[in-house]
């Protein structure tokens, strides 16, 4: 903007020069006109002067001619008349010259005096009016008056002949002076005309220069305008100026159209811009704020810190007829001129994605925090068991992964796959909830839901398993996080940092100090407490002989007991009211007994609950389409009880975290069979359910 001052000065100078030249032209014209007039007048005078110049000799000649005619007695009237005309003409022309300016007066006066000297001699001649000749018989001769006339003419002739040269000289001088004047005026006029021509040329040049400058200026202005337009069309922010009436100026960026879904911004008031977009309270605050921007107290930083439109939630049309919530950020910059604030430059940006991102980040942080909090509180109670669980869970999930990777084509293959997944997940979930690791249990429960949903599908492809794989990844990540925390926590509890810094070493060390049996007992008691609480069924868990469980059987025994404990809590132990009605103690009892026998080991699991009803089991099997009604009718009680070991069997109609998925006893049975053992069930309705598991001696089996 610096050049505009210099531009203005240049333009002013050019204009002044032009005006000066124009004035000069006018002057030249006026002076020229006057000069021309004078020259014309001078030329007329010169003509008269030249005419006058001829008179002296003419007079002499006329007088001579008159005298000769008188001498030869010729007719004199004509010459006399010519003489009179000459005299009159001289008088007239002389008088005319006398009145004119620019005539050399002394010379004219001298000529006048000389001419006046003619008068005495010419007057008698001119006054003569008689008959100069008398005719007698003797012939013609001069009459008396004629003789006098002759004498007078002769005298005049002589006078004229003597005076004519002097008079002529005077008159010639007069002409010469006039001529001199005229030619000097003419040369002045020539000079003037040259000046005029020069001025015209200069004026032309100035005009051309001005034109050039203007077109250059116009081009620059056009280019600037184009650039402004490009900027306003391209910039992603909404840009506009607010005037002192809080109205939007005529120049605004195209982005506003997208942000506000309208085109008519010029002249729109700020309030109108926001109305219908924000709450009335916000509108009032925004309007007040805009007014404050014009005030003296409005420092940029201060105003920025109280900007109520820094993150404005607005509802905009999404262009497809719907509404969308956006977050707009308004920024205001005051444009200050010499007379205070001229405009307020307003920029508007759509910061929706930023806000969303920040929100997601916040939520992620929150959830991480809550998880850590939860984990820490859990770990506080029993980090040892959690460590053990993490190991088994990792192994279990490895198995899940293996199942997922198995190729499958037929529906039966997919079905088998799903059943395998269910089982594995179910047992992980059981352990997780036993340890009160709800964040893990819930995730596994989700996975189970997904698998369950797949089971309901008539046609399956590999792609259907993709969400399960993703969810599994998430679960694994979560387990890693938990492991990380427990590692830190156990390190903390130990008071000695792990020498190798490996993940499992502190846990291993912890495990070494506690026997597997203690850990198992603690897990089971914890689960029992939780189940009793969750289902509102108080019961006591009595554990006997667990220390005799061979190390090789510990994982299996643990898995089986957890499953059976859950079944007992859900299906076995009755609700308060039922137990009261049956005159039973309100607190149930679950007994676990492990014994080493000569032939191997025996694990007995017994609850004093409702027992199993063969009829109910049969109905459930029919409902699950594991049996037809006819097959069910033919089944004896013993075979009916064995139904609970069938895959996919469950008596519960609805699914809960602990039971009802139809996975449970089949897992237990499968695990027992895998060790080469047997499982049996006996029951008495309303009294008890007892599972008896026989396992071979550990040395006899190859299974570790």
């Amino acid at each position, binding site marked *: 903007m610096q050049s505009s001052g210099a531009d203005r000065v240049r333009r002013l100078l050019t204009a002044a020069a032009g005006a000066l030249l124009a004035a000069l032209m006018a002057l030249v014209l006026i002076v020229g006109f006057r000069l021309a007039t004078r020259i014309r007048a001078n030329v007329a005078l010169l003509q008269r002067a030249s005419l006058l110049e001829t008179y002296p000799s003419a007079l002499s000649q006329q007088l001579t001619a008159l005298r000769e005619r008188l001498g030869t007695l010729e007719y004199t009237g004509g010459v006399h008349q010519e003489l009179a005309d000459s005299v009159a003409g001289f008088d007239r022309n002389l008088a005319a010259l006398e009145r004119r300016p620019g005539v050399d007066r002394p010379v004219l006066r001298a000529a006048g005096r000389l001419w006046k000297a003619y008068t005495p001699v010419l007057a008698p001649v001119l006054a003569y009016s008689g008959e100069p000749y008398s005719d007698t018989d003797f012939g013609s001769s001069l009459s008396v008056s004629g003789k006098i006339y002759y004498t007078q003419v002769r005298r005049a002739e002589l006078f004229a002949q003597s005076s004519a040269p002097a008079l002529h000289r005077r008159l010639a001088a007069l002409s010469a002076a006039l001529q001199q004047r005229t030619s000097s005026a003419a040369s002045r006029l020539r000079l003037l005309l040259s000046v005029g021509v020069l001025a015209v040329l200069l004026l032309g040049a100035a005009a051309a220069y001005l034109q050039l400058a203007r077109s250059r200026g116009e081009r620059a202005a056009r280019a600037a305008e184009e650039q402004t337009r490009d900027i306003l069309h391209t910039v992603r922010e909404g840009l506009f100026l607010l005037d002192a009436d809080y109205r939007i100026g005529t120049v605004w960026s195209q982005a506003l159209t997208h942000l506000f879904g309208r085109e008519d911004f010029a002249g729109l008031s700020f309030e109108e811009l926001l109305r219908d977009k924000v709450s009335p309270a916000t509108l009032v605050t925004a309007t007040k704020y805009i007014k404050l921007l014009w005030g003296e107290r409005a420092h940029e930083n201060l105003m920025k810190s109280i900007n*109520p439109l820094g993150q404005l939630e607005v509802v905009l049309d999404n262009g497809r007829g719907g509404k969308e919530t956006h977050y707009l950020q308004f920024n205001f910059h005051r444009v200050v001129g010499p007379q205070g604030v001229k405009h307020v430059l307003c920029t508007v940006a759509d910061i929706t994605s930023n806000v969303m991102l920040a929100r997601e980040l916040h939520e992620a942080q929150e959830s991480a925090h809550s998880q850590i909090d939860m984990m820490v509180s859990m770990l506080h109670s029993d980090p040892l068991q959690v460590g053990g669980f993490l190991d088994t869970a990792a192994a279990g999930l490895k198995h899940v992964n293996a199942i997922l990777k198995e190729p499958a084509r037929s529906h039966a293959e997919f079905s088998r796959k799903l059943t395998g997944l269910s089982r594995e997940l179910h047992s992980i979930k059981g352990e997780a909830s036993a340890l009160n690791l709800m964040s893990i249990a819930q995730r596994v429960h989700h996975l189970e839901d997904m698998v369950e949903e797949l089971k309901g599908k008539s046609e399956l492809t590999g792609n259907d398993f993709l969400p399960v794989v993703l969810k599994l990844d998430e679960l694994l990540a979560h387990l890693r996080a938990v492991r990380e925390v427990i590692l830190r926590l156990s390190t903390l509890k130990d008071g000695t940092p792990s020498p190798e810094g490996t993940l499992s070493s502190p846990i291993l060390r912890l495990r070494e100090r506690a026997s597997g049996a203690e850990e198992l007992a603690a897990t089971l008691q914890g689960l029992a407490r939780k189940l009793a609480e969750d289902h509102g069924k108080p019961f006591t868990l009595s554990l006997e002989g667990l220390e005799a469980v061979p190390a090789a059987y510990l994982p299996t025994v643990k898995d089986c007991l957890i499953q059976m404990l859950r079944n007992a809590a859900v299906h076995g132990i009755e609700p308060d009211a039922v137990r009261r009605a049956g005159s039973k103690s309100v607190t149930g009892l679950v007994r676990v007994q492990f014994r080493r026998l000569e032939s191997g080991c025996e694990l007995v699991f017994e609850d004093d609950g409702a027992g199993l009803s063969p009829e109910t089991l049969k109905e459930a099997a029919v409902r699950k389409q594991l049996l037809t009604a006819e097959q069910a009718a033919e089944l004896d009680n013993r075979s009916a009880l064995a139904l609970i070991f069938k895959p996919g069997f469950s008596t519960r109609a609805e699914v809960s975290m602990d039971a009802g998925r139809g996975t449970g006893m089949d897992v237990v049975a499968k695990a027992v069979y895998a060790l080469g053992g047997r499982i049996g069930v006996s029951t008495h309705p309303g009294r008890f359910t007892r599972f008896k598991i026989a396992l071979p001696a550990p040395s006899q089996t190859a299974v570790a």
Partner: protein
Amino acid sequence: MSSDTPLDRRPVKLLIVDDSNIVRRRIERSQQFDDLQVVGTAANGFEALELARRTDPDLVTMDLTMPQMDGIECITRLVKLKPGLRILVISALADKATAVEAMERGANGFLNKPFSDRQLNEAIAELMY
């Protein structure tokens, strides 16, 4: 300027208004200006007005949420009492609307709670000179 003569350097009189005793003391102790003289501390709007009448302060630090008479009302009355009084709002401004309102009523600056000593002194300096 006349500031060469010590007599012309009249100290700036400060009135502290906040319902919290701790905050009042904090402001009083944290300010580091030689030419700032604390002429009074008030725990609510009525006290503030009463003290302002008696002590004729040049500068007021003002809390917005106070019992009896809130800061906005107090600002309005103070400005009426003494036009040209400089008011620094020191408050936990939950929403910008309150700030705009205070500004409209005549506040000259804002300082968000919690604040550091440096922030306090910068905010006061901005209004003192």
